[in-house]
């Protein structure tokens, strides 16, 4: 049987490539989205493991004493709004933030929760890279965005999210096709999170090898590009050449953006000498270079039993939050907000912070808080979102929504609207099956 042969380079050049999106369809989508558009790019920050709402943007100083936790609430720059004492820098940026305190869903495990939070849909049983999966928010946004030739539409870094070695479903383009899988990039600098697992490390090594290829004149890279790509377009193969695509960016402004050595060292210091901070910095640089959407996974890539620097704090919650998690996060996201604003980019750049779920009001016997999807907080900044506001609330103990309960899908609809994308838009998968892209309603945050 005849199998068509396509060289990798051809596929890369045609851009849309194997994913099968016709140009007229793309133009139509753009036209639909154009009118209300404010934000030109989006930075999605994913807090893997589930950040405690109580120890971040929804402190509960009035909660029962055994639920209250060890930290105090502090005032922010917005009168009447308090944050946890260990995000003092963010507290100074509250005038840029919309805090949503009434999110809730029903997925109690990380896999289902990540899927729900990042896709806005209930999680199906399936494989991490299954094409029947719903696209991640990052992928969905990129589907409606334009990028120059050689510039990826979506990038994710510094590593993918795993739970005990298992890659989590929902982080990819799903039925949009492989062309909308975010390109994974390793942030080229910064002290890594503690607790990155061997799975993650292997992934990092792969990226490091790619880096080495660059230095060595990219001969092997060219060979790999020229090698014929068989018709067997299985996912892994496709993915591998997408990684190659990441390396191809040498010729675009994205390459310059990727090299953090080009950044003012004082600005690098501002973000913190940690891969978390340097990833936020890289996200700013990449959006500046024309990448429409960048996802930063803030936290160690593998939960591995809740031991590393991730937000899954079943043990030693207060120690971990105070010493490792909140300082890195607070400094890096505050630097991002400062930097976007002083460059005049914040109004054109939407920053969306997403997490699995909140954490239980009750502190367990190991000094930890467990999974709590019944209520949790997320934040938005920039991109036409009105700052200095809180939407919804949780009850006294932070157990349930007390007002304006909303869903991950509503959060998505808000993000899409800010990006000028109609949340009710309908897309078709490669078999022509129609999907309404979002089931939520935009929140009144504009």
């Amino acid at each position, binding site marked *: 049987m005849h199998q068509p042969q396509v060289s990798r380079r051809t596929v890369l050049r045609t851009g849309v490539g194997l994913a099968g999106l016709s140009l007229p369809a793309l133009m139509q989508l753009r036209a639909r989205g*154009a*009118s209300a*558009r404010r934000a030109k790019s989006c930075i999605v920050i994913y807090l893997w493991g589930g950040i405690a709402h109580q120890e971040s943007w929804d402190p509960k100083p009035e909660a029962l004493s055994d639920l209250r936790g060890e930290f105090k609430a502090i005032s922010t720059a917005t009168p009447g709004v308090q944050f946890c004492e260990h995000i003092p820098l963010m507290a100074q940026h509250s005038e840029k933030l919309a805090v949503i305190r009434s999110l809730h869903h029903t997925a109690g495990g990380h896999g289902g929760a990540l899927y729900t939070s990042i896709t806005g849909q209930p999680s199906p049983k399936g494989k991490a890279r299954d094409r029947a999966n719903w696209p991640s928010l990052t992928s969905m946004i990129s589907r409606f965005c*334009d990028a*120059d030739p050689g*510039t990826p539409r979506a990038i994710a870094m510094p590593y993918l999210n795993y739970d005990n070695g298992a890659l989590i479903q929902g982080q990819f383009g799903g039925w949009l096709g492989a062309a909308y899988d975010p390109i994974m990039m390793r942030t080229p600098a910064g002290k890594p*999170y*503690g*607790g990155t697992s061997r799975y993650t490390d292997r992934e990092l090594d792969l990226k490091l090898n790619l880096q080495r290829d660059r230095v060595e004149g990219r001969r092997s890279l060219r060979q790999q590009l020229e090698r014929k790509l068989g018709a067997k377009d299985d996912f892994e193969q496709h993915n591998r050449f997408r990684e190659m695509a990441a390396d191809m960016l040498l010729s675009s*402004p994205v390459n310059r953006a990727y090299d953090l050595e080009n950044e*003012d060292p*004082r*600005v690098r*210091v*501002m973000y*913190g*000498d940690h891969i978390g901070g340097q990833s936020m910095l890289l996200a700013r640089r990449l959006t500046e*270079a*024309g990448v429409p959407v960048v996802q930063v996974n803030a936290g160690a890539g593998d939960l*591995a*039993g809740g*031991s*590393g*620097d991730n937000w899954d704090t079943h*043990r*030693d919650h207060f*120690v*971990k939050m105070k*010493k*490792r998690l909140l300082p890195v996060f607070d*400094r890096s996201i505050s630097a991002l907000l*400062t930097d976007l*604003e*002083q*460059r*005049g980019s914040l*109004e054109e750049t939407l920053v969306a912070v997403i997490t699995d779920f909140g954490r239980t009001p009750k502190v367990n016997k190991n000094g930890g808080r467990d999974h709590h999807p019944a209520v949790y907080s997320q934040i938005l900044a920039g991109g036409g979102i009105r700052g200095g506001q809180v939407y919804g609330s949780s009850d006294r103990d932070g157990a349930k929504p007390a007002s304006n309960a909303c869903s991950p899908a509503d959060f998505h609809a808000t993000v899409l609207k800010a990006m000028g994308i109609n949340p009710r838009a309908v897309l078709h998968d490669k078999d022509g099956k129609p999907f309404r892209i979002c089931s939520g309603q935009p929140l009144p945050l504009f």
Partner: protein
Amino acid sequence: MCRNPITTAPAFCLLLGYLLTSGLSSRADEVTDAVAAIEKMGASVRRTGDAWEVDFHLRGRGLTDKGLKHVAALENIVWLNLRNTKVTNAGLAHLKRLEKLRWLHLEKTEIGDAGIEHLMALKNLEYLNVYATKITDKSLDRLAAAKNLRRLYVWQTEVTDAGVARLEKALPNVKIVRGVDLSKLASSFPTEAETPRPKLSLKWIAVNNREDAPRRSENGVNCTIWFENKSKRPVKLYWIGYGGGELKLYGTIAPGETRRQNSYSRNAWLITDEKDQPLGYFAVEEDDSVAVIPG
């Protein structure tokens, strides 16, 4: 054929329609030509309703003053991004035609006060980004006449506190973003070198203490252990693995030297002499600690 008077009216309408549409289409041609000229210079052009958004900051950074003349031919531009292009003060004179302009990026260009003068005709300007340009307080004083201005970005320019204060007073609705002073910023953060020596000390478990000797590492929280070799000979540092307790060499610590080692709480470490003869153990506790290897 068309003698019937009833049909003449529609015919006239058709003719009128033709004249109108041909007039429109010639205007449309002008617009199409202007868009084509702008795109040829590398800009991306987007239409939103009647208005246009034009970005040069990605592929169109070669834009010069001459090119700016062609840009101004597209009159309905509301959003223009000239970041990092080669435009100068003189070129900004072309922008006078863009009466609908609301959003203008001029950051990281060579422009200065003389260029701002040309913008005073832009009555609808709401957003002006001039960070990393040569503007001074002179520009701020002129901008006091820009009544619709809402956002002004002046980070890394020569404007002063006094100039900013004057403009804030003249235009209370303007948000003037000055950004952080990078020269003062670095000193406000603690550096790695200043990390204080942990207060917690780990217990030295001598090799003959069979009861307390840890057999394997358990998973825990990431932390840093300061191994301080107070003995008179070099020692070797082994990590005791999770499952079967296999050993992994992490390095040798010279006498008097301190090694800062990444670890996890509930991890176990073995100290040996240079010939791999076990000397003792440390079992990591909750947090960053000091582990003193005795003499």
